[in-house]
């Protein structure tokens, strides 16, 4: 349904351009849940914006295509895009407080979205708005409420309800739960998953918190410094992470179960995208790097069913998962 190939995004600045997303390719099946994780500045949000064609200058798509249901979205005019937006593809942003209009009631914002696609009657609007709010578990009386009258969780829910107005084929979510408390977060994740299963839309879900989507996504894509480092089935990535960065991420957050073990995290900081290290972009922080890693830029290699950008995985010098583990 969605085919992203060779997508690159540049931020064009006065003193040259910075490549924030570098040659990213992936496909998405109908009804699939793809999780994208990475640290701040790894290009995950820029990638989402590029897929949804929401990039604003100085960011431009430098290369590649985004094929959505057969149409290449790159290069479409705003007019052509607006026919697709909300109807076939919708976006849920990180901060609902900023994404919702503070001076309009929830119902009025739903009405705007519906009027942008056709001429629904007042009854149709009212009926559909109430229906989508009920779908996310909010009483339709809140159609008259303004965003500030709702709790953080309810605002995020109404954003998701708005994204559901036309039952799109693809919903793109950029950290929709990051402003919520852990109980509200879990409740929202369960709700998203339930909606997805009953309406069959596909989800691209971006987050910095790997553990959050461990039970929800079908496939997981790990990004580092603008590139895909690892892409595989979610369970496989968690059970048998292949890239040292993925392993580092997994071992960077403490668990509430099992023995208390000292953790190290990943040394150093993510690289400056304007001054990337030579060779593998992770080699400066990688405890398993060998000399070759600083010279040769790795491709994305197929190892079993996963894709991994690691030279040592490709040449087999790291074979067992234990060998790759940072702390063991």
């Amino acid at each position, binding site marked *: 349904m969605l085919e992203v190939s060779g997508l690159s995004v540049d931020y064009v600045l006065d003193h040259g351009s910075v490549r924030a997303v570098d040659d990213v390719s992936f496909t998405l099946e109908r009804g699939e849940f793809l999780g994208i994780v990475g*640290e*701040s500045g790894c290009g995950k949000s820029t990638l989402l914006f590029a897929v949804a064609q929401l990039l604003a200058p100085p960011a431009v798509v430098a290369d590649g295509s985004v094929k959505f249901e057969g149409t290449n979205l790159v290069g479409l005019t705003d007019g052509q895009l607006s026919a697709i937006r909300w109807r076939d593809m919708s976006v849920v942003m990180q901060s609902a407080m900023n994404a919702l209009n503070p001076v309009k009631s929830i119902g009025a914002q739903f009405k705007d979205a519906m009027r942008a696609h056709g001429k629904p009657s007042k009854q149709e609007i009212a009926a559909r708005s109430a229906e989508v709010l009920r779908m996310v*578990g909010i009483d339709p009386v809140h159609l008259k409420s303004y965003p500030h009258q709702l*709790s*953080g*969780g*309810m605002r995020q829910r109404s954003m998701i309800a708005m994204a559901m107005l036309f039952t799109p084929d693809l919903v793109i979510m950029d950290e929709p739960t990051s402003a*919520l*408390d*852990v*109980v*509200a*977060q*879990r*409740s929202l994740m*369960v709700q998203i998953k339930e909606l997805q299963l009953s309406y069959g839309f596909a989800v691209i879900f971006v987050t*910095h*918190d*790997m*553990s*959050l989507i*461990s*039970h929800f996504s079908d496939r997981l894509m790990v990004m580092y410094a603008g590139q895909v480092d690892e892409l595989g089935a979610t369970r496989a990535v*968690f059970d048998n992470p292949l890239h040292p960065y993925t392993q*580092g*991420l*997994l071992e*960077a*957050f*403490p*668990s*509430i*179960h*099992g023995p*208390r073990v*000292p*953790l*190290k*995290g*990943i040394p150093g*900081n*993510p690289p400056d995208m304007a001054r990337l290290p030579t060779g593998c972009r992770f080699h400066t922080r990688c405890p398993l790097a060998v000399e070759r890693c600083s010279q040769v830029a790795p491709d994305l290699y197929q190892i079993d069913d996963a894709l991994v950008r690691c030279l040592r995985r490709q040449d087999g010098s790291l074979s067992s998962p234990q060998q790759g583990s940072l702390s063991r």
Partner: protein
Amino acid sequence: MTELLRTEHLTRHFKIGGMLSRRMLHAVDDVNFTIGEREIVALAGESGSGKSTIARVLARIYKPTAGEIYFQGKPVSRIRSRPEALRYSSLVPMVFQDPFASMNPVLRVQHGVLRSLKLHRPELSGQQRTEEAARVFEAVGLGADMLERFPYELSGGQRQRVGFAQALAMRPKLILADEPVSMLDVSIRIGLLNLMAELRDKTGVSVLYITHDIASARYVADRLIVMYAGQIAETGPVDDVLANPRHPYTQLLLSAVPDPRAPMSTAGEADRGEPPKVIDPTPGCRFRYRCPLAIDTCAQVTPVLAELLPGHDAACHVAQSARGGAEQVKAFT
């Protein structure tokens, strides 16, 4: 455990609404806890539970509405003179949540350290101040060359280390760290948590670690205080509270923590996580609306903390009545 700080019936209310409004928001209500020497105490709870208000009351940014704080045995409300106030704030400094907002962008990062040294340790000469700044930077894992940098040259993790260096320069007894890692990337957080443990072990400082992330609390803290709606729901040694949670809210919180290593918990799935409003509360347990175990008493009598296991207290009628608390009552598993 040698006691360093103790609160007695600490309460802080805020007036809300217009000028004539009499409505009161009970941000912190009747909170009693102690912090020992060389101890990291985690204060956990959802947003609006009053954890940041407690930090601000302890830092003397807010005055308590009622109750008292005893620091090294002396009541904090007795502090009158400026030297006394300065002494207290140098012994109990604060580290803030947002390392991007808590530093002046046009001044070098050493500025904060040097300023506080000048203010709090006037006996030092300029040369000694610079040496001391280099020493505390070293202690938080930053090179002395970092002193001359500007905030924009530092990563989030490094800036937060500067925050700890500023606190450390005053030779504190208790650092109030309000969500010090929540703005940082996952891979950087652990380094800061390890730093807090290292500071405790090496310099003997205590830390009040305020967080909504219970897993990080478990990782670094000695004791845990779980707050709900301005009151303490449960408190005790961190491993004991997490392995053996007595309060239904603690159980709900634990069941909601995502853990890829464990199968997903379905307990309390229907709970929306809506934070309670504590405006002019009536007596009774504030968690009763979300609690599957609530009984009639819960709507009438506000539960108080009672020791159920050694050093492990919970404020729950149901947990307390189950054989004097010896038995665990499970609301969410």
